[in-house]
C-alpha cells in the first residue's frame, strides 16, 4: 500500500499519540464521563488506522503486528473471564460477575469496584479487534489480490 505525502506523514506523527492518549482518557474515565471501553477502544483503533493509512506499511511488518493484535484480543477476553471468575471466588455469595472490590466514593477516579478494570479490558479487546479487521480488509486485500 502506498503512503501519502510528506505533509500528511509529519502531521500524523504528531497527531497519532494524542488521539491514542485521548482514547485512553475516555477508557479510564469511562465510569465518570460519557464513553467507556467501547468508545475508547474504537478511538485507539482509529489512531492505528490513521498511522497505517498515512505511512503505507509493508505487508510482513503488518502481518507481525496483526498477530500481536490477535494475541492482545484473545488475552483481553481471557482477562474479562478471569475477572468474572474472581467474583465467584472472593465475593461472599456465589455470583458470576460479582463486583467484589471496594466501591469507594461516587465521582472519584478510583471508585465503582472493578468497573474501571473491566473497561480497560474491553477497550483493549475492541481496539485490537477493529485494528485487525482494518488490516485484513484494507491491506491484505490490496497486497494479496495481485
Amino acid at each position, binding site marked *: 500500500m502506498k503512503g501519502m505525502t510528506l505533509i500528511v506523514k509529519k502531521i500524523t506523527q504528531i497527531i497519532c499519540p494524542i488521539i491514542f492518549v485521548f482514547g485512553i482518557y475516555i477508557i479510564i474515565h469511562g465510569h465518570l464521563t460519557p464513553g467507556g471501553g467501547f468508545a475508547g477502544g474504537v478511538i485507539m483503533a482509529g489512531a492505528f488506522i490513521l498511522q497505517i493509512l498515512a505511512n503505507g506499511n509493508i505487508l510482513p511488518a503488518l502481518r507481525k503486528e496483526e498477530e500481536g493484535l490477535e494475541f492482545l484480543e484473545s488475552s483481553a477476553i481471557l482477562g474479562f473471564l478471569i475477572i468474572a471468575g474472581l467474583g465467584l471466588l472472593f465475593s461472599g455469595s456465589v455470583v458470576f460477575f460479582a463486583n467484589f472490590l471496594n466501591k469507594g*466514593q461516587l465521582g472519584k477516579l478510583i471508585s*465503582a469496584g472493578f468497573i474501571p478494570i473491566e473497561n480497560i479490558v474491553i477497550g483493549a479487546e475492541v481496539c485490537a479487534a477493529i485494528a485487525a479487521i482494518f488490516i485484513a480488509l484494507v491491506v491484505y486485500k490490496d497486497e494479496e489480490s495481485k
Partner: protein
Amino acid sequence: MVFKWYAHLIDNSDILEDKMELYLILILVLMILGSIYSLNASDLLSAVISYGIVGFGLVIAFLLLQAPDLAIVQVVVEVITLVVMIATIKNTQAKISQMKFKPKIAIYYALIVIAALIFVIIFEKATGCLNSFGADTMRMAEHYISGVEHTKSANLVTGVILDFRAYDTLGEATVLFTAVIGVLTILRIKGKKEEDK
C-alpha cells in the same frame, strides 16, 4: 473536563427540548432521503459516501436524544465503516447495470409501494399501543437508576453494561472475536498457501 462542560451545556438548554420532535423529524427525513439516494446511485463511490449521511444523521439524533456515549461510538464507527467500504470498492471497475424500463419492472415498483403502504398502516396501528414520544415510562429504568447506589458508577450506562448486564458484554466480546476470526479466515487463505510453498 470537555465532556462535563458539554453536559452542562445540554442540560441547561431549554430551547432544545421544546422543538425536539421537529428537529428529529427533520433529521429523519434527511436520513431517509440520503438512504434512498445511496441505494439508487449509479456509482458505487457516491453510494457509499451518501450512506455516510445516514450514519452522521444518526450521530446528531443520538446527541439530541441525550445519549452522548452512543454518539461518541457511532461517530468513530461510522468513519471506520466508510474507510473500509471505500477500500473495498477501490480498484473495482464494476459498473452498475442500469435496469431498462420494462412493464415488468413498473409492476415491481407498484408492488413495492403497495407493500410499503400496508406495512405503514400496520405499524401505525401498532404504535398506538406504544407510549407517545417522550412519555415517562420509568418502570425498569427506576431499578437501574437507583442501582447507582449499588455500583457507584457515575455514568449509568457503564454501570448497566458492566455490572447489571455484564453477560451481554461478554456475549458482545465473543461476537466481535468470532467476526475477526471469520474475516481473517476468509481473507488470509491465499497468503497462508503462499507461505507454505
